[in-house]
């Protein structure tokens, strides 16, 4: 690794930090996004729990957050970050803006996935006497499953991009490595290396996503 100009341990640490940030914020973000997406689908105009106020408020909040670029969002919510994790800097501190960033994004993706489910399925569920929870659990989620996997895939890739900027608050990670060493210290080989690693990462994630999604869908 001499030719990269950084100790190997640093690269491993950066990779660990990226994986840590992506997986934790993806997990928390997905849960929040699923709840919000379900709320949107159930309360929209054709929803079985139609509620104009809930829908409009949630929809607007999501639109507002989605329109703020991540790097600005991250700085903007620093006070909130401090409130939640007790510090403004570091890898864990980056989780807060990452979740705030990815949850609305995933919400939109999930919302579309769930809306793809045929209305007739919900009607059949209602006719069977299913409760609202049962409609979600036994009908909407299984039917949207294949599409949801793809949505998570797209969300994960977006999240990797966002973590590169998290270096701005000292979160580390692969992106930060490329910026500090590759850009500021003009270490082109390292830059190239991280770019290749990122491309491979993204390719693998996309392939997994496509594979599992089509496995579920091609019944």
């Amino acid at each position: 690794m001499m030719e990269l100009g950084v100790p190997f341990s640093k690269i491993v640490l950066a990779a660990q930090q990226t994986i840590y940030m992506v997986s934790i914020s993806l997990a928390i973000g997905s849960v929040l996004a699923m709840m919000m997406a379900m709320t949107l689908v159930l309360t929209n105009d054709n929803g079985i729990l139609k509620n104009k106020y809930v829908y409009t408020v949630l929809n607007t909040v999501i639109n507002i957050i989605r329109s703020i670029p991540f790097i600005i969002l991250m700085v903007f919510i620093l006070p909130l970050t401090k409130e939640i994790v007790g510090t403004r800097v570091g890898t864990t501190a980056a989780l807060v803006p990452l979740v705030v960033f990815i949850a609305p994004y995933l919400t939109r993706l999930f919302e579309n996935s769930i809306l793809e489910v045929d209305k007739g399925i919900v009607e059949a569920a209602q006719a069977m006497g299913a409760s609202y929870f049962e409609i979600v659990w036994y009908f909407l989620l299984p039917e949207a499953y294949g599409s949801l996997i793809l949505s998570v895939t797209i969300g994960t890739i977006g999240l990797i991009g966002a973590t590169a900027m998290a270096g701005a608050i000292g979160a580390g990670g692969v992106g930060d490595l490329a910026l500090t060493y590759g850009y500021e210290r003009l270490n082109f080989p390292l830059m190239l290396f991280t770019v290749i690693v990122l491309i491979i990462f993204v390719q693998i994630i996309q392939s997994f996503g496509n594979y599992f999604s089509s496995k579920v869908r091609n019944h």
Partner: protein
Amino acid sequence: MINFIDISKTFTMKKQQTNALDHVSLQVRAGDIFGVIGFSGAGKSTLLRMVNGLETPTGGRIEVDGQDINTLSFSELRQVRKRIGMIFQQFNLLNSKTVYDNIAIPLRLNRVGEKEIRARVSELLEFVGLSDKVNAYPNQLSGGQKQRVGIARALATNPSILLCDEATSALDPETTDSILRLLEKINRELKITILIVTHEIHVIQRICNKVAVMEHGRVIEWGSVLDVFSNPQQEITKKFVQTVIADKIPDSIVQKLQGDRRNYKILRLQFLGENVRDNVLYRINKDFDVETNILFASVNELQQTVLGIFVIQVIGESPEIERVMDYIRNQQLSWQEVMI
């Protein structure tokens, strides 16, 4: 069993109002296969969906087994829905689940044990004739097979009523026939009351004992299939009935008649049951001094009864034709003179 009492339904969408149902009253009795026919947009689906509370009326009320559906709490309504099966034109099966899991769903919603579910599902698959498809996914099935799964799913919880919304409209004629036979078997063997809405008159002809004709949200005519088919009152009913029970004299024959200079009358006779027909035609020929020509004849089976329609030309002296008409008047059949 199902009592629609003066039901109205107005949809308001973007300030525009649609009267989907307009003071509809109907009674469906236990054991009926009750058909509702009408063109698209007549309000049939809206009416059907009232029965299990998927739609609520804006006027009137609906009773199922004496219970007013719209006064129930949501959990009470859910219990009622479990006693009412429903099948759909587009089948509405879960594509992500096997045939087994699709049929098992209503049982799982009822917290039935897996062992019991297994027994019930195989019993149902046997009943609908799909035992070999238990592990297939809906996309691997034909339309008719999908509908059989839909039917099995609807029957899983032993309902007393089955609602069918255009259940055969997406199927080819042969498959339609086999599904209709299955519905008939469900009615006969499982004693399930069936309410079926359709725009296909032959569905009514094949299996229903009662029929209601809908147009623009109103029921314009209803009664037993035998009565309505043999004596349709409304124009639209006549149109529907004519497509399955022909009673028009062919054009070429009409042309020939116009050149016929003899003294004659054309009579349209309608017979229910086979024996009457033979006897009447035989008597006219034997006992009167007239010549008869059959211009048109059709024989149809409805509810295990034969409905025969004969258009005959009676040729002879006027007084003799009058005597024939007197004779016919005294028979148990409906008839009319036809002008061409």
